[in-house]
C-alpha cells in the first residue's frame, strides 16, 4: 500500500490556488521523473505482452518485440480465435471458472468479513480481543502454507478435485475482517446504531441498511482485494484440482506453458491467454477504482 501513497497525497488539488504549500520546481520534476520511470517499469511488460500477442510464432522471435508488424492485426485475430477454440474451447471455460471463483467467493467473502469486522467493532463481549487477535494472526499465515493441510482435510471429506475445493477456502479473508473493524470503528458512529435501535430496527437490519452503506468504500476495497487474491491464487488450485474443466485461468495457462517444449505452437496461446486473462482484473479495477481510493483515503484520516 505504501507504494500507492504518492497518488493519494496528491488529492488536495483544489487547494493549490489557495495557499497550500508549494513544492519547489526541482522536487516536483524529480518526483515526476521517478514516477515516470516506475510507470514505464510496470507498463513495459504489459506492452510487451500486448505486442507479442499480435504475432505468429515465427515472427515472435524474429521481429522487434516491442513494436507491431504489418500483419499484426490479422495475426492477433487468428491468435484469439485459436485461443478460444483450442482443445474444444477449454480456455473460455477457465476464464469462466476464474470469474465465478473470484466474484462469487469474493462477494460472499466480503459480506462475511464485513459482518465479522462490524461485530468486533460494535459489540462488547468477552473474548472479543482474543478473537480479533486470532484473526489478525491469520493475516500473517501465507495462503500457500495452508494449501497442503487443506488438501488433507478436503481429502477426508472427499471434496478434492471439486468446485468446492477452491471455492470454500476462498471465502475467508482475515485481512478483510481487520479492515472492516477499523473502518466500522471510524465510519459508523455508535449514535446512528443507537438511533436505529430506538426506531425499532433489528440488529441484522441495522447492519444491512445502515452500516453497510456507511462502510461501502471499505467493502469495495475488501472485495477488490479478495477478487485479486482469488484470481491470482494459483497454488491452492494446483494442489486441489486435476480435472482441467475446473481449472482457473492461472493454472490452465501454467499447464499449457509447461507443455511448450512438446507442442511449440502453444507458446502463442500462452501469451495471448495471459493478455486476455488480465482483462477482467482491469475491468474490476477501472470500474471500482473510484470507491477504492475513497476507501483507503478515508481509512487513513483517522
Amino acid at each position: 500500500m505504501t507504494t500507492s501513497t504518492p497518488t493519494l497525497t496528491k488529492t488536495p488539488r483544489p487547494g493549490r490556488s489557495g495557499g497550500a504549500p508549494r513544492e519547489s520546481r526541482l522536487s516536483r520534476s524529480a518526483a515526476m521523473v521517478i514516477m515516470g520511470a516506475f510507470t514505464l517499469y510496470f507498463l513495459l511488460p504489459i506492452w510487451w505482452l500486448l505486442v507479442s500477442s499480435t504475432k505468429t510464432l515465427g515472427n515472435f522471435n524474429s521481429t522487434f518485440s516491442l513494436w507491431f508488424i504489418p500483419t499484426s492485426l490479422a495475426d492477433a485475430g487468428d491468435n484469439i480465435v485459436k485461443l478460444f477454440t483450442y482443445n474444444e474451447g477449454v480456455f473460455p471455460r477457465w476464464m469462466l471458472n476464474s470469474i465465478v471463483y473470484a466474484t462469487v467467493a469474493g462477494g460472499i467473502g466480503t459480506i462475511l468479513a464485513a459482518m465479522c469486522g462490524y461485530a468486533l467493532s460494535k459489540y462488547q463481549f468477552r473474548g472479543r480481543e482474543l478473537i480479533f487477535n486470532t484473526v489478525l494472526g491469520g493475516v500473517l499465515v501465507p495462503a500457500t502454507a495452508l494449501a497442503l493441510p487443506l488438501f488433507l482435510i478436503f481429502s477426508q471429506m472427499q471434496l478434492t478435485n471439486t468446485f468446492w475445493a477452491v471455492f470454500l477456502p476462498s471465502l475467508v479473508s482475515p485481512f478483510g475482517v481487520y479492515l472492516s473493524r477499523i473502518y466500522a470503528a471510524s465510519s459508523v458512529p455508535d449514535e446512528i446504531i443507537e438511533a436505529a435501535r430506538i426506531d425499532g430496527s433489528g440488529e441484522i437490519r441495522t447492519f444491512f441498511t445502515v452500516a453497510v452503506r456507511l462502510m461501502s468504500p471499505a467493502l469495495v476495497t475488501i472485495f477488490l482485494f479478495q477478487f485479486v487474491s482469488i484470481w491470482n491464487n494459483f497454488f491452492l488450485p494446483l494442489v486441489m484440482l486435476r480435472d482441467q474443466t475446473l481449472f482457473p485461468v492461472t493454472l490452465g495457462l501454467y499447464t499449457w506453458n509447461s507443455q511448450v517444449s512438446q507442442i511449440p505452437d502453444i507458446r502463442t496461446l500462452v501469451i495471448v491467454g495471459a493478455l486476455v486473462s488480465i482483462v477482467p482484473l482491469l475491468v474490476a479495477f477501472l470500474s471500482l477504482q473510484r470507491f477504492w481510493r475513497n476507501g483507503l483515503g478515508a481509512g487513513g484520516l483517522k
Partner: protein
Amino acid sequence: MALKNLRIAAVATAALVALAGCSAGGSSDSSGSTASDCAASTGKVDLSFTTWVPGMDKVVDIWNKANPDIQVTVSTVPNGNSGTYQNFFTQLKAGNAPDLGQVEYDTLPAFRVQDGLANIASCDGVQAAKADFADGLWNQVTFGEDNSVYAIPQDSGPMALYYRKDLFEKNNIPIPTTWDEYAADAVKIKALGGQITNFPKGDVNWFAGLVSQAGGQWFDTSDGTWDVNLTSDVSTKVANYWQDLLDKQLVSTIPGFTDQWNNAYDTGADWTWVSAVWGANTISSGAPSTTGDWAVAPMPQWDAAAPTSGAWGGSSSVVFKGTKHPAEASKFLLWLNTSTEALTALNTEANLFPASSTGATLPALSEGVPFYGDQKIYELFSEQSKVVSPFTWGPTMTQTYSDVSDGFAAAIGGSGTLLDALKDGQTKTVAALQAQSIPVK
C-alpha cells in the same frame, strides 16, 4: 535385491513425506512391495490417469472406444517438476492418488523410496514387455530388483549433437566426433565471432546426461545402501572440460529455453546443441529462420573406439500404490506404450519419441525432417538410443538439481568452479538422504 533394505526406510519416510504436522490418518501401505497378486477385477472398471502429455486424451479415446469394460479418464496437469510430483506425493499420503500417472525416469527412485509405486511384475504381459525395451531403460523401471516392475517406459531422450551444418561447411570446420575436436572447433568458432554452444546453468539433468555418456554414475545402490558420488573421476573430467570452455569464454551462458536462448540459435550466435531427441522441436520452433540449416550427428566421444550416448529426460507410466485394479491398469499401460496404434498417436499428438523398439519402426520416424535438411534424424536417434549408457538416479533429484544448479550459477558468475558445485551438491544430497532416513554410505 538392491533396495531391499530400503523398505524399512520407505515405511519410516512415508510418515515424514512433505507434510510435517498433518496427520491424514489411515493410509494403507502395509505389505511393503512384494509383487502383489494381479487379479483381474470383475465388471466395468474405471481408471484415472494423470499426465502432462498434451493430447493424451485423444490417444486414450482410441482405447476407450475399443475397451468398454476398462474406461480411462485422463487429467492433463502441469509437468512433474512444476508441482505434479508434489501433488502425487500428497495424494498418496491422503490415499486418493490416481490409478495411473506419469513419472520421469529421474524421479522414479523418489517414488520407489516413498513406496508409492505398485509392483506390476506379476500382471499379464508385463515381464514379457522387457523384450520391447533397451536394457538400460528397463533397468530404470525395475531398479535391478528381482521379480519387480514399477513402471512401463513411455518415451526416451537419447542425446546427439545438433549443429549448424551450413556454418560448419562454409567455414570449413570439421564436424567434431570427439570432445577434443569439439573444444578445438570451439576456438575456431570463437575466432569467427560465434560460440560453439551454450552452457545452461539450470539444466543439471543435461549435465548428468553428459556424465552418463562419459561412463560416470552419480548414485549406486548395488550394496543395498545409497552411495552418492557426484565427484567421481568421470564426473570431475566432464566438469573440468566444461569449466575450461567457460574460462576461455568459448561457450555462452544463457539460461536454457528462454527467448534469449532461442534468439542465440535463431541468429546463429550459437552453433551447436548437445541435446535429446525432443530438442528437435525446441530448435525448430525457437529458431525458425534457420530452417534447413541444421543437421544431427552422434554426440562427440571421449573414446572414439567405443561410441556411447547419454539420455536427457523421458517418462514412464506408473501404477500407483492403492489402485484397486492393477491388472487392468497394466493392460492399458502395455497398450499405451508398446502398441503401434498408441505409439503412432502419441507421436502425432505430442511428438513423443517412443521408448519401445516397436516405436522405432513407425513410418513417421523414418521420414526426413525438412528443418534438418531432410535428414532422417529419428533413425539416427534410434541408433543412438541403443548405445545410451545406463545411469542410476537418486531418490532426491529435485534437491540435487537445485543445489548443483545454484553452484553452476555461481561458477558462471565467477565464484567457484563447476567441480565445486558438484562437491557442494554431493554434501547436500548426502545430508538430504540422511534427513529422510534413507540409508546412505
